[in-house]
């Protein structure tokens, strides 16, 4: 077979991962990025970077597991501070009901072969001394971790370029047709395959997207503390962090705190059905308040910067990964909500398998963009 010419639209974490998976299979890959460079814009520049196996949904669990495995075993060369660090996740329970839920989750994870420990009482505080003594237990996933996504996207692109891929920055794609992408000034480019990984607005570029599961914005607020304040070692998150992920609620606030390798804490977060814009100080205050309930004293740590980001949430909570309905040359990888950093390398493998007609490592049907 002659070399496939492939265009990847978007240099976020998903586009960057796709580029690497495709160039590794011998594709001639060009990334088109609207902004200054890979990983500098969109959700990738704003997201926390928790690499997490989430069992909210069985298919998603598989995608998370594969993503985590690839980040652990096959990450591109990076500065150790930015790369995958095995911090583990601690899901926390405030009451018996919460603990029962975690206990059931532990069973499901065990069935799926995922290492997880239910910690009750003192064992929780041995694992994470800074937690509130009002908590009664937690679920520890020791193999989860954290990663700095803007650097990871850049590293994936750098590795792809070493293998022969190219990237064109400050170039916006305005529309996509079969085998062709069109740029702002009317110029266009042809390719054998096109992967649309432009994040929140991906479907706007796709012809026939009315036959796809729609994608909606889900805004989140985050804050980062000064150095010298990292008092936890796990990514600490309250059970129910994903609530609001599917958008039934107007506003959801839950505690998720990520330990940074720079001795800082990244404090989140919220979910509101809208695009990110200016900062809502009152909402940020509620987030910090929420975190204080689980990690006493955290609200007393000085904050350097607060920002907002937009998750791309599909209507049924599952990402869109695969060939566009009715098309033979257009693939989409978008709608990852709050899990895109974790799942990016897995999604990239599915896209590459589909383009190169390989047997996929996991069943891709749950993510078919044309599902209903």
């Amino acid at each position: 077979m002659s070399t496939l010419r492939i265009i990847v639209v978007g240099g976020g974490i998903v586009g960057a991962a796709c580029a690497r998976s495709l160039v590794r299979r011998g594709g001639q890959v060009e990334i088109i990025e609207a902004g200054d460079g890979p990983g500098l814009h969109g959700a990738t520049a704003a997201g926390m970077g928790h690499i997490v196996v989430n069992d909210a949904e069985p298919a998603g669990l598989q995608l998370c597991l594969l993503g985590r495995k690839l980040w652990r075993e096959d990450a591109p060369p990076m500065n150790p501070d930015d790369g995958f660090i095995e911090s583990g996740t601690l899901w926390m329970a405030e009451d018996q009901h919460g603990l029962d839920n975690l206990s059931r989750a532990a069973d499901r994870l065990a069935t799926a072969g995922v290492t997880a420990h239910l910690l009750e009482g003192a064992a929780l505080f041995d694992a994470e001394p800074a937690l509130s003594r009002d908590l009664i237990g937690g679920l520890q996933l020791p193999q989860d971790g954290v990663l700095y996504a803007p650097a990871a996207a850049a590293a994936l692109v750098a590795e792809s370029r070493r293998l022969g891929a190219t990237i064109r920055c400050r170039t916006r794609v305005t529309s996509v047709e079969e085998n062709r992408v069109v740029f702002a000034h009317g110029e266009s480019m042809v390719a054998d395959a096109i992967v649309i990984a432009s994040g929140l607005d991906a479907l706007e570029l796709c012809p026939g997207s009315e036959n796809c599961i729609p994608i909606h914005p889900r805004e989140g607020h985050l804050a980062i503390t000064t150095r010298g304040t990292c008092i936890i070692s796990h990514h600490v998150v309250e059970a129910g962090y994903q609530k609001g992920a599917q958008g039934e609620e107007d506003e959801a606030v839950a505690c998720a705190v990520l330990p940074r390798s720079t001795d800082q804490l990244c404090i989140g977060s919220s979910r509101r059905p809208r695009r990110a814009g200016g900062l809502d100080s009152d909402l940020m205050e509620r987030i910090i308040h929420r975190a204080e309930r689980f990690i006493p004293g955290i609200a007393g740590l000085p904050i350097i910067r607060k920002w907002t980001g937009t998750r791309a949430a599909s209507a049924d909570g599952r990402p869109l990964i695969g060939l566009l309905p009715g098309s033979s040359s257009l693939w989409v990888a978008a709608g990852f909500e709050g899990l895109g950093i974790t799942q990016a390398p897995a999604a990239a493998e599915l896209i590459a398998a589909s383009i190169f007609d390989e047997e996929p490592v996991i069943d891709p049907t749950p993510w078919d963009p044309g599902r209903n």
Partner: protein
Amino acid sequence: MNSQEKVSIRVDGTVLEVRSGTQLAAALMGEGIVAFRSSPCGDKRGVLCAMGSCYECRAMVDGHRLVRTCLVTVQDGMEITTERPLEKKLLPTVETTDIVEDETGVVVIGSGPAGLSAACVAAELGQDVLLIDESARPGGRIWAHRGQMPAVVRYWIDKADRAGVRRLQGATVIDGEVGWLEAASVISGARTRVRCQKIIVATGARERFLPFPGWTLPGVVGAGALQSLIKGGLDVKGKRYVIAGTGPLLLAVAAIAVSEGAEVILAEQASLLQRVPLAFSLLASPERMREVWQLWKTLRGVEKISSCWPVKAQGNQRVEKVYLKIGNVTRVEEVDGLAVGYGLIPETRVAQGLGCVLEKDGRVKVDRYQRTSVEGVLCAGEPTGIAGSEAALASGQIAGTVAAAGTPSFQLMQKLRRHRGWGIALERTHSLRPDLIRSVVEDVIVCRCEDVVSSSIRGVRSLRQARIQHRIGMGPCQGRVCMPILALGDTLEHDSVRPPWSTCPSPRTELSSTDGH
């Protein structure tokens, strides 16, 4: 206030007697404490700017992390501790301190010449005015003082008091939009939220720094910083200083250092020839001529070198030697301190935070009535361009008048134009030498908060990339020191500003510290 009176403060457990009314940073330096914090890679750091923009002087004060000691006046019983990383342990629960709610017609941010005059005029025209400033005392950088208030400051403060201007000193504006602003106490982080109709941004300028090997050593401070420290109570009698960099500020700094008994060498990077045109503008203004003559008399015995700048500072834990480049030779001076600043840059963060559009060169864009691109937000003084205190006074009065729905007089507008012209002439005659700018690409620390070295950012294409992927400007100063250095290259866009517009202590108190934690 009697500045001979002593107060006691405790520094890392040791009790020190210092003069009352002293700036905390100056008091500590006076006691020989020049290193205030450790950088991420373990270097000792001390005061750089002494005006609240670099965060190098930060320490824990009375239990609050991240207090800028250069913005604080010593108080009896004050407890100062070096900031140390926290352990992974349970902390005491904290409780949010109450937010003070306030309401006014006009908020003026900054109490230098522009802010004070804007506040006065607006209040005299019947507006309810609140003046917010992060320093301990009004006057801004140029009118900063200790003990006796200079006559001109007294004049404006009295005028402001008579007009009913309310003042909130020691508070930094950290967030807001048209309609409301939030300010945080620089010591406790306690918040004040002010509802208002109009905002006048008069946040002044900060110093421009250029990195060179050794510029991070404690004892290397800004030129304006030395002035601020001396006014803040630092005793320089018998001390030897090199005062270097560029611009007319150097003369003023040298003059105050000399009159306080320091031995000074003055090094200006611009050539004499470059500065000749200034002489002509000077001749045109008798008041200025008089000022310069006074300066010159004070500096009679001081060695002044042109086309000269520091290329290296050396010392054990603090600066001891300065290497000066003069033409092709390098001269070494033993010093007690080096003060170096390369002119001023507009302080625009608050304006940017409010959404005001900037000019390409980084000034806040205003029309001739000092109105910014955002309805209801005006801007006066140095954020709109460096032009000195006379221009600041004039633009402040214009902004104050316009905020009170008045029409500024023709004379005022003309005065502003004349003084602006002077500012432009100054800037042109002190433009930075290309070889000086080139030297920045050497292997030096550019971002002092995060210890980012210049060589690691070669090939970086935007400030955004420098920030997000190389951690430039990710520390508490949020790029105030390093971004202007990067912007010397050909990057065009401005760095993004997000709340908090200044990093401040958290507005919380520990709950129940009496229950035996």
